[in-house]
């Protein structure tokens, strides 16, 4: 279904305006102070370039830090309950990396299996992902170890690859991609053979381990408490890795109340926290940090691949860049996979 064409980088402004006129909210990596965050660029030159990856992921577009699930007000013995609308704002996510594009498949697998989550479905349906291939990477990237790659088209509606500083190779991959391109068809010129140059400009991301093979082997390491303890000795048990991670989807359900009215919220949660599995009796099936670190690795590299058929990690490296004590997931998993040899 993918057709390639050439898009002049200078024409990005026209394209973004066309999206705006079509009622699309555009989110892109924008430099704010010393950080690159996802925001609505006021002009195309505001879109950040020359960075490997944003510190925080873009998952908030479909799975925000907190969601109001319902509101209620007491009414004598009865309760008035009100549900927020499921409608989602049409959004174009521009300039994310191929690993981010691939991460939406993991979130979709969790939120739509068995009993679909209405908000997630509505937000995904109105999201168009236009990603930009990676021409540079750093020590933390390991997308090529988990089935992805600097030029992977997985999860993207359109993938742009910077052939040089003037032109993008544009691969239109889905209907949504076609709809986005159709907003300004005049900007896209035929590729006539340029697609072959794509591989040359892509970053070289060394393969650290083979995820599929590792997923088979990992369950047998469950009882190696010595290994898990040694790896997680320096882990402080915060939620930074889970909250910056594009594929972490665990959440908490909390009620907020002021006198006789209130709201029920879904909030981000992390398996690294003590309360995550604490029973009312005080018993905690995962009461030490090494067990929580084991759960993080097992969930992403064994349980999700086996149960949902998706990788639980897209190798973006955000957790390792954000960790206060340099817990490097790619490095740790490579060490675990080498144990299997």
């Amino acid at each position: 279904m993918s057709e390639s064409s050439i898009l002049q980088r200078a024409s990005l402004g026209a394209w973004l305006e066309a999206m705006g006129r079509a009622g699309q909210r555009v989110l892109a990596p924008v430099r704010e102070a010393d950080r690159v965050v996802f925001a609505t660029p006021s002009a195309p030159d505001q879109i950040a370039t020359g960075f490997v990856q944003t510190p925080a992921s873009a998952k908030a577009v479909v799975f925000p830090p907190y969601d109001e699930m319902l509101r209620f007000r007491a009414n004598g013995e009865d309760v008035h309950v009100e549900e927020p609308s499921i409608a989602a704002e049409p959004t174009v996510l521009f300039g994310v990396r191929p690993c981010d594009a691939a991460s939406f498949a993991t979130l979709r697998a969790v939120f739509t299996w068995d009993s679909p989550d209405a908000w997630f479905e509505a937000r995904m349906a109105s999201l168009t992902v236009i990603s930009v291939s990676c021409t540079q990477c750093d020590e933390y990237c390991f997308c090529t170890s988990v089935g992805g790659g600097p030029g992977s088209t997985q999860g993207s509606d359109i993938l742009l690859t910077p052939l040089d500083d003037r032109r993008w190779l544009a691969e239109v991959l889905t209907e949504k991609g076609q709809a986005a391109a159709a907003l300004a068809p005049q900007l896209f010129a035929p590729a006539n053979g340029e697609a072959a140059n794509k591989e040359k400009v892509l970053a070289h991301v060394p393969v650290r381990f083979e995820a599929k093979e590792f997923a088979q082997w990992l369950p047998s390491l469950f009882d190696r408490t010595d290994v898990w303890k040694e790896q997680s000795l320096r882990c402080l048990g915060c939620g930074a890795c889970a909250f910056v991670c594009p594929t972490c989807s665990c959440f908490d359900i909390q009620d907020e109340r002021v006198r006789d009215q209130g709201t029920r919220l879904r909030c981000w949660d992390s398996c690294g926290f003590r309360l995550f599995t604490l029973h009312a009796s005080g018993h905690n099936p995962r009461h030490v940090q090494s067990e929580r670190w084991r759960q993080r690795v097992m969930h992403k590299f064994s349980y999700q691949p086996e149960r949902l058929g998706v990788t639980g990690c897209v190798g973006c490296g955000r957790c390792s860049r954000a960790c206060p004590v340099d817990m490097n997931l790619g490095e740790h998993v490579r060490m675990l996979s080498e144990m299997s040899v």
Partner: protein
Amino acid sequence: MELLRDKAKSLLTGGAVQVVIGYAAGSATDRFRPHFARSADDADRLIFGEGCRQNLAVYLLKPEVRAMGKAAVVGGPTTLRTLLQYAVENQIADGLVVALALEDGRVEELTSFAAVEEYLAQRPHGLSDGDRAELEQHAARSQKDRWAYWSAELARCIRCYACRAACPLCYCEQCITENNQPQWVPVASDAFGNLEWNVVRAMHLAGRCVNCGSCAAACPENIRIDLLNQVLAQEAMTQFGAEAGYSVRKEYALSVFKPDDKETFIR
């Protein structure tokens, strides 16, 4: 570096300590990671440099590390001040921790709180000129600008609690945020919840914080939450002459009072 490694090896092989908590090379040239040296080989990986910012004293209260036996901890003045604040708050007993104080490449072994106190007495107190200047610059802004800055910055907080995890003095078994009867500090990362959390964190460290900067270094959103602690440390100094982590006397700013504490705003 060699001095540090040799010192660590002698401590370990001599059995004075069972683990030396220091730093080792990290994922990138500018990254360092906490390193638990328990053998001479481990000690060879010990390094110290500009990027070593996580206060290693935080590990002294971790059960996994305590189980290793007696520990030596590597660090600068703020790590040493943490040890004295631990002493004041009865978290560790004297003689149980060896401090390896590092300054311009020299290593000094301090095996008692008294030695640490004396070492710190000869070092400059209070906020550094840089910290003070930055604080003044923030404080000099108008109230409207201060609120605009802080309400925007705190709204970015994602409540990952890396600040709490990285802070050696945030060691409560059950943090106020984990109390849900009532849920004082809301769980959601909304504007009110974030403001409440960051004010509570700063106030619960008032008069205790040693300004090691681990909280700001850990924040994935790069919010300058350390400024909130510094302004309280500065106020505790000017109002009560109290500074955390410089003595083992069982008192710090909010644990004691003077009947004639002066203030200008109580009617």
